[in-house]
């Protein structure tokens, strides 16, 4: 199967992007430098093509109740125009996918899911939403751009002229217009910075992308690739499906225990509530390398000569200028300030267990 291309493919090539395959899509991993793109997002702004992500609409009188059964997060926390982060659970308490739910109205929800899991999610939703709910996969007609960084507001206000933009709070969204077409503007992101996620139909995305790039020139906006997206989310300790999260990892284990707050019944509630109360078998640790080595996914983590788990995500932190990682390990063996070691190419490199996250959500808007 050949990789799919987003509607911005030609724009990426023009910008000199280096393309890679990710989850069946051909996407830019970087344009000039992951470090430069990372720092642009931390200091001014960056723009990402994340059109590969999946979007699913759940509509109907039964939508709210059906979704509530699938997630450990209280649907009551939503209101019209608000979104929340959560996950779908399987019967064993593992994660089918992590997602954002946007409440469009009492009977209509917009779900933003991972690219590689969209098909599986649609099947899961269809199987579990039988009464008074219609499930529609709109990924194929939807493109998505993330504009992230402290200058995002100054840039976007030149493009989306809408009174609602200025006062838009974190996790809230509205549907504005661009070139006469609707654009869902959400104050959310995956970088640890203030910013927006923008959803629109495919045929205006190239114009929107280029207009934002032009508007951002005076603010130091840079196009940013998947490489920077990954280092940014790693510094912020945002779990990534396929790394910290999977069908055999629970939300408590995978570092997203904060999504567990529903009081009503949901799939695997017993298991999840038990883990919340009594602890899960494993936990995510944050590690900072004490030498100059760089931890990568799957490297073993050793404590007292025992293998206690493995790195789930690791890399070089452009901000801290050292190797950092999240690791899934047996719970309760080590704690903050303890020293563990990471097996790198047959040698042990020392690492310190540090507080989560490496970089606190900044939220600064210039």
């Amino acid at each position, binding site marked *: 199967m050949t990789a799919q291309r987003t509607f911005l493919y030609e724009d990426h090539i023009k910008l000199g992007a280096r393309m890679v395959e990710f989850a069946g899509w051909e996407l830019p991993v*970087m344009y*000039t*430098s*992951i470090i430069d793109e990372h720092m642009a997002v931390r200091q001014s702004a960056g723009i990402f093509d994340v059109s590969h992500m999946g979007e699913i609409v759940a509509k109907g009188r039964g939508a709210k109740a059906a979704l509530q059964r699938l997630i450990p997060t209280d649907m009551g926390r939503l209101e019209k125009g608000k979104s929340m982060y959560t996950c779908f659970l399987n019967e064993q308490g593992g994660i089918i996918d992590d997602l954002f739910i946007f409440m469009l109205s009492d009977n209509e929800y917009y779900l933003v899911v991972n690219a590689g899991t969209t098909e599986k999610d649609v099947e899961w939703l269809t199987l579990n939403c039988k009464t008074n709910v219609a499930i529609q996969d709109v990924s194929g007609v939807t493109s998505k751009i993330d504009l992230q960084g402290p200058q995002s507001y100054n840039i976007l206000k030149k493009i989306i002229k809408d009174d609602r933009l200025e006062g838009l709070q974190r996790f809230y969204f509205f549907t504005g217009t661009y070139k006469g077409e609707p654009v869902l503007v959400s104050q959310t992101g995956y970088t640890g910075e203030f910013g927006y996620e923008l959803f629109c139909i495919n045929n205006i995305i190239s114009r929107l992308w280029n207009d934002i790039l032009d508007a951002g020139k005076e603010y130091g906006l840079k196009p940013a690739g998947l*490489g920077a997206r990954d280092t940014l989310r790693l510094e912020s300790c945002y779990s990534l499906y396929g790394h910290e999260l999977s069908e055999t990892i629970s939300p408590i284990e995978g570092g997203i225990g904060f999504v567990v707050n529903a009081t009503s019944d949901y799939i695997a509630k017993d298991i999840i509530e038990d883990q919340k109360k009594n602890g899960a078998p494993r936990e995510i640790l944050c590690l900072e390398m004490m030498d*100059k080595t*760089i931890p990568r996914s799957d490297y073993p983590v050793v404590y007292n000569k025992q293998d206690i788990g493995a790195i789930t995500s690791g890399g*070089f932190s452009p901000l801290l200028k050292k*190797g950092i990682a999240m690791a899934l390990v047996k719970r309760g063996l080590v704690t903050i300030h303890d020293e563990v070691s990471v097996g790198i*190419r047959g040698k042990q490199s020392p690492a310190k267990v540090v507080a989560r996250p490496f970089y606190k959500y900044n939220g600064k808007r210039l």
Partner: protein
Amino acid sequence: MSNIPENLKYTKTHEWIDVQDTYAGVCGITDHAQEMLTDIVFVELPEVGIEVKAGEQVAVVESVKAVSDVYAPISGRITEVNKLLEDKPELLNSDPYGEGWIYKIDIKDKYELDELMDAAAYAEHVAQGE
């Protein structure tokens, strides 16, 4: 277009060797290699004194995104490594043929040099996108 000095010999895997006399060479990675890697943030140097065979993995360079092996262009014994790279791996990006050299080697068999590419052949190799 990347820089490919005339006086060096090259491998298909994007290493260079500067043959200083019949028995000694300086080795590193090419400008093209550093361009492909971008943002080099770690170098694992070989141990001084070890013997390597041509084509054998001898060092590791890591960019933000990826881990890449560096192979020996020629058989021989490592005589010196560029310790400066431990603190400044970015020298591989800024000066791959100069301050970014990785190690020096005593050449075991000078006839192996005939297996390597000259600048023109390497330029063609790069142009073919290999």
